[in-house]
C-alpha cells in the first residue's frame, strides 16, 4: 500500500498514512487544532493551511471551493467599502482556492508528503 507522510506543524507530529487518507482523519487523532463540525464540506470550520507539498493533496472539489468561497466572503464583506470587490474575489480564488494555501480538512486527501497547520 502506497504511503505518505503528513506533518502537523502545530503539534510537531509527522504521521505516516495510507495514500488517500483525509486530513481530518489524522488531525483529530493527533490533537491538531484544526477544528471541525459537519465533516461534510458544508460548514467550513475545518480550514487549514498547507505549508508545504500542496501538489501532493487532492484537487479541491466544487463543494470545497464553494465552501471556501463562502468563508472568505465574510472577509470580503469587510472590504466592500474599499470597492473593487471583483478583483478581490479573483485574487482570493487565485491565491487560496487553487489548493495553494487554504483547504478543508474533511475534503482533502493526502497523496504525497505535505506539511499542514491550522489557520
Amino acid at each position: 500500500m502506497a504511503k505518505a507522510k503528513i506533518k502537523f506543524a502545530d503539534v510537531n507530529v509527522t504521521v505516516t498514512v495510507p495514500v488517500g487518507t483525509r486530513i481530518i482523519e489524522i488531525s483529530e487523532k493527533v490533537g491538531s487544532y484544526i477544528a471541525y463540525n459537519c465533516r461534510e464540506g458544508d460548514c467550513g470550520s475545518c480550514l487549514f493551511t498547507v505549508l508545504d507539498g500542496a501538489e501532493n493533496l487532492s484537487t479541491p472539489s466544487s463543494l470545497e471551493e464553494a465552501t471556501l468561497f463562502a468563508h472568505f466572503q465574510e472577509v470580503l464583506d469587510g472590504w466592500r467599502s474599499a470597492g473593487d470587490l471583483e478583483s478581490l474575489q479573483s485574487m482570493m480564488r487565485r491565491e487560496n482556492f487553487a489548493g495553494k494555501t487554504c483547504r478543508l480538512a474533511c475534503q482533502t486527501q493526502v497523496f504525497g508528503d505535505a506539511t499542514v497547520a491550522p489557520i
Partner: protein
Amino acid sequence: MAVTDRVHWIGAFDPKMRTFDVILKTPNGTTYNAYLVRGSEGVAVIDTVKAETADQFFTRLEAVADYSEIKVIVLNHLEPDHSGALPELMRRAPQATLYISDAAQLMLKALLNNSNIAYTPVTTNDRVSLGDRTLRFLNTPYLHWPDTQCTYLEEEGVLFSGDVFGCHYCDEQLFNDSVGDFRFSFEYYYSHIMRPFKQYVLSALELIEPLQINLIAPTHGPILRDHPRHYVERYRELSTPQLHLEIDHDVKTMLIFYISSYGNTMHMAEAIRDGALEIGGFRISLYDLEGGEVEPFVDLVEDADAILVGSPTINGDAVKPVWDLLSSFAKINVKGKVAGAFGSYGWSGEAVRMVEDRLRGLKMRVPAGGLRIKLIPSDVELEDCRDYGRDIGAFLMGKPRAREIDMSQL
C-alpha cells in the same frame, strides 16, 4: 398588546409547556414573542411563533394591521418555535419581503422544504426602511444557532434580540416590571442555551453594547423595558471567564480527574501530575471524582485549558461518575481544549479508549493516545505515566515534542 406607539406584541402564550426542546424544564410555561413594527411606509413583522400557537399570532396581528400593509418579515432565528407560522404568514402577505441572515438560507429551505421561497439575506448594519422607522440588522451567529441575528429599531431604541436575553417564563403581564420574579428562568435559560456559546455572546455584545437601548424585546419571556441594560451587563458577567478574573490571563490550567477502585488509577493520576509539574508554567489540580459533585467541576472545566480523565474499567465500561462528568461537558464549550484519558484495569480495559473517543467526540484535542496499565503500575509504568504528563504539559505549553508515528498506532 402595545409595546411602544409603533411596536406591538403579537406573540403567543404557552403556559402549559413543561419541557422545551427535550432538555429544558419550563415550570412556568413559555411565550413565543413576535412583534409588529409600524412605519409611515409599511409594517414589519419580526419573528413568528410555534405552529401550534399560530392562531393566537394571527388573531393578534389582525387586531393591529392588515396583511396588505406588511412590507417586511424578519426572522431573527429559524428554530421552529419562531418560524412555525412563517409559511402561512407568507401566504397571507405575499407582497412582503423576508429578511434572514446569510447562515439561515439553507435552514430556511430545509425547514420549509421549499426551494422557491424568496428572501433577502442580510448582515450587520444592513438596513431596511419603513419610512420614518428603520430596522438595522446585527449578525450574531451561534446565539444559539448559526443563523441567529438581532434587529434594532433605530428611532425607538428597541432591540429585537431573538433568543438572547430571553427566558422561558409565561406571564400575560409581559413586561419585566409587571411579571413575577423570573430571575431563576433568566439564569437557567442562559445556563442551558447560551452558556456553550460564551465566546459568541461576547462577540455579540460588542455589537449590542454601543446601542442606545430603551427596550429589549426577546423571543421568549418578559419584554425588558425596565433597566434593559442590566440584562446586557448580566450577559457580559455570565460570559466572562471567571478564573481569569482571579489569575493572570496567561496562566494555563490543567485538571486531572480520576476515580479509582483499588488506588491504581489514583497512583497513575499522581504520577501524571508529577510529570506535568516537571514541565511547569501552568497550574494543576487533581480531583477524585468519588469525593466531588459534578456541577462545581463543570465550572472549573469551562475555564481550564487541559482536562485529563482517569477511570478503571468495570464490566467493560468506564464508571458512572466519569460518564456523569463527561456528559456534563455538553453544557459548556470544551472544543479545542487539550484532553487525555488514562486508567488501570483488571482483565479487559475498554474504559480508556471509550473515554478518549468521547473526548474527541466533544472536539477536544487529544494529543497523546490514552494510557492503560494492567492492575498495579510498576515503577517502569509509573515512569510512563510521568512521561505522559510531560507530553501533555509540553503540548499545553505550546512546545510539543517531535513525534513520528504510523497511523496504525493512532
